[in-house]
């Protein structure tokens, strides 16, 4: 072998090693499945492709957990992981699935709404690929994803995303954002098929209340709030006042702007029978001026730069040395969700939705998120669904 061939072989070997070193962790993350234990209230597990056939066989298809009540009543849909870098939504949904028992009505829960996004990441921001939650029996691992679906599943992006059906011009990347592609269409891009599936679920099952659970930056004005359109604002206001009076935390109401299209809190109500609500809990991890994006920051929400900004009154939420930990964020989401169901049931007695077994804010703050997560290894046969 001459000198030139030796050099090229060495370079090619280094190239292959570099590809494997960089690519294999991403490959494993994309194929990592999260177990969710079917709690005592789960009566069926469906697939979103049953409502949007274009999703069948794609990464974007996802599980729908049905918790059918003992008595008839209203119907609700709870959505987590619309943005997979806001895990308080997914964890709220998982806690409901693993602990909730529906006494009246039916609850549909989609814990990983943007399944493709939950298998994506943001290497440029140094995102962790997983995070572990400490539980009473050990640690439970979850995928940490990205705001948008993976370009492996929907590619290429257009120069400008033209929203369907309003034709509003949105940022190109929002074509992979399942909180811009509502109400979707059966034959649109993959993420429009996802939101179309959820719209079909709401239309066919006659869902009364739809709650989309998110997290938002402390420096973003629409944070620590319930976003509601005109149709839902009364219930949202009552829920906000009640959680403040009874549970002691702020969660104000933000109006859903009618001129900004594609968002769940706008399109769900405009194109289906449900009253939409979008919950935002403050997540310091998403703020730009923070230290490294570590799992510690994700879990405890403590950051010295945000603390400094808070003292300069640059944040939209109170912030001190205690940060904004995961248990507080998930606890807020669960309490507000339960309060929305309670207020809806008071207003519409014949369509009431009554759920027991789901912890509230104080329970989460006291016991932590992990206390309410089941151990998949102890579940009975057939009691675990991989997501």
């Amino acid at each position, binding site marked *: 072998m001459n000198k030139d061939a030796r*050099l*090229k072989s060495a370079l*090619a070997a*280094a*190239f292959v090693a570099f*590809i494997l070193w960089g690519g294999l962790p*991403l490959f494993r993350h994309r194929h990592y499945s999260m177990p969710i234990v079917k709690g005592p209230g789960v009566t069926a597990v469906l697939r979103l492709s049953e409502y949007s056939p274009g999703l069948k066989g794609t990464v974007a298809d996802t599980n729908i957990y049905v918790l059918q009540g003992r008595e008839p009543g209203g119907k609700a849909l709870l959505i987590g992981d619309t943005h997979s870098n806001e895990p308080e939504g997914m964890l709220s949904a998982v806690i409901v699935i693993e602990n909730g028992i529906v006494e009246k009505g039916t609850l549909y829960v989609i814990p990983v709404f943007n399944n493709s996004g939950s298998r994506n990441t943001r*290497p440029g921001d140094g995102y962790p690929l997983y995070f572990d939650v400490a539980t009473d029996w050990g640690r439970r691992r979850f995928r940490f994803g990205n705001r948008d679906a993976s370009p492996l599943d929907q590619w*290429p992006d257009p120069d400008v995303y033209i929203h369907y059906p309003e034709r509003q011009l949105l940022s190109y990347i929002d074509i992979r954002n399942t909180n811009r592609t509502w109400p979707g269409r059966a034959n649109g891009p993959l993420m429009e098929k996802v939101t179309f599936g959820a719209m079909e679920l709401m239309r066919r099952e006659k869902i009364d209340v739809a709650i989309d659970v998110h997290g938002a930056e402390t420096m973003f004005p629409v944070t620590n709030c319930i976003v509601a359109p005109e149709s839902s604002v009364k219930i949202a206001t009552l829920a906000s006042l009640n959680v403040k009076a009874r549970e002691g935390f702020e969660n104000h109401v933000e109006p859903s702007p009618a001129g900004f299209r594609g968002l769940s809190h706008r399109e769900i109500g405009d194109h289906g029978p449900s009253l939409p609500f979008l919950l935002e809990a403050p997540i310091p991890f998403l703020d730009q001026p923070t230290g490294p994006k570590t799992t510690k920051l994700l879990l405890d929400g403590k950051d010295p730069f945000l603390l400094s900004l808070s003292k300069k009154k640059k944040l939209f939420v109170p912030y001190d040395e205690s940060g904004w930990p995961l248990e507080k964020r998930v606890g807020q989401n669960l309490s507000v969700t339960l309060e929305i169901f309670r207020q809806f049931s008071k207003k519409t007695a014949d369509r009431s939705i009554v759920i027991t077994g789901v912890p509230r804010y104080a329970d989460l703050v006291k016991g932590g998120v992990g206390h309410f997560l089941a151990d998949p290894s102890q579940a009975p046969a057939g009691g675990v669904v991989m997501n």
Partner: protein
Amino acid sequence: MIMIAYYAITAFLVVLLGWSFVREKARRGDLVLYLLVMVPLVLRLLRWK
């Protein structure tokens, strides 16, 4: 359809760069540059990222 076309373009570029890598005789710096440019293209073809 557009996605298939983009994958075809990516594969074409990988072949082009690979061929240039094999044919390059004089400029060693260019060998490294060919490989660096190929990284995202190969990852895309392997559907890793």
